C-alpha cells in the first residue's frame, strides 16, 4: 500500500491525516494527486500542496510504489 499523509487544512477537510492507497503500475506523484482529487473532492487546495515522497520534496513525475509514504504539504507557516 501507499501511505498518504495530509496536513493542516487538508487534514481538517478530510477529517484525518492518513490514507492508504493501492499502488498501481507506473503511478507517479501527479497521478496519485489526481486520484485523490477524484476520490476525495473535499481536498480543495491539494493542487497547491508540495509533494514529498519518503520525507523528501519530490517532483510531479516522481514514481511512487508499494511501501512509499507520500505527503502533501500545504504552504508552510513555521517560524
Amino acid at each position: 500500500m501507499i501511505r498518504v499523509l495530509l496536513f493542516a487544512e487538508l487534514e481538517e477537510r478530510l477529517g484525518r491525516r492518513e490514507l492508504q492507497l493501492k499502488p498501481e503500475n507506473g503511478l507517479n506523484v501527479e497521478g496519485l494527486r489526481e486520484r485523490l482529487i477524484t476520490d476525495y473532492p473535499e481536498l480543495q487546495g491539494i493542487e497547491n500542496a508540495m509533494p514529498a515522497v519518503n520525507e523528501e520534496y519530490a517532483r510531479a513525475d516522481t514514481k511512487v510504489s508499494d511501501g512509499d509514504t507520500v505527503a502533501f504539504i500545504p504552504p508552510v507557516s513555521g517560524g
Partner: protein
Amino acid sequence: MTQSRFTITDEAVDVTAVIDKVTHRNAGAVNTFIGTVREMTKGKKTLYLKYDAYVPMAEKQLARIGDEIVRDFPDAEVAITHRIGELDISDIAVVIAVATPHRADAFEASRFAIERIKEIVPIWKKEHWEDGSSWIGDQRETTAYPGGSPEKGDIE
C-alpha cells in the same frame, strides 16, 4: 550523549540548551534568534496559536538548513529547535543559535535560517481569534513553489 541539533518539540523551548549545542572555543559570536507568538496581526487579536508539523521531515529540513549554512560559512555551528502544539502569546515558537568565529557571519546565517524555515520546513500555524480560527499559509506571499522543490537562493 549527543543531542540532535535540529529538533521539533512539544514542550517549552530551553533557550540556553539550544545555545549550548553550538558554543565552542573558537566561536567569537553566538547569534540567537527567538521567534515568539505575537498578539496583534494586521489589527486582529490572536488568543493563542497551534503549530503542527510533519515531524520527521521537518527535522530533516531543519538539518538541511544547517547544511546550507555550513556550505556558505564552513566554520558555523548551527542548532534549531521549533515548538509545536498550543502556544500562548509571548511563548517561544522557535530558537535558532549560530556560532561563528566572527559576528557578521552569525547574524547573516541566523537571518537566513529563519527565512528558510518559512519556506521549506513542514510546520503550520493555526491562529485562533475571538471570532474563529484559520490555518495560515503562504507567509512569504508567494504561491506554492514555482520551481518544484523550494530552492536555496529563492530568498536572496
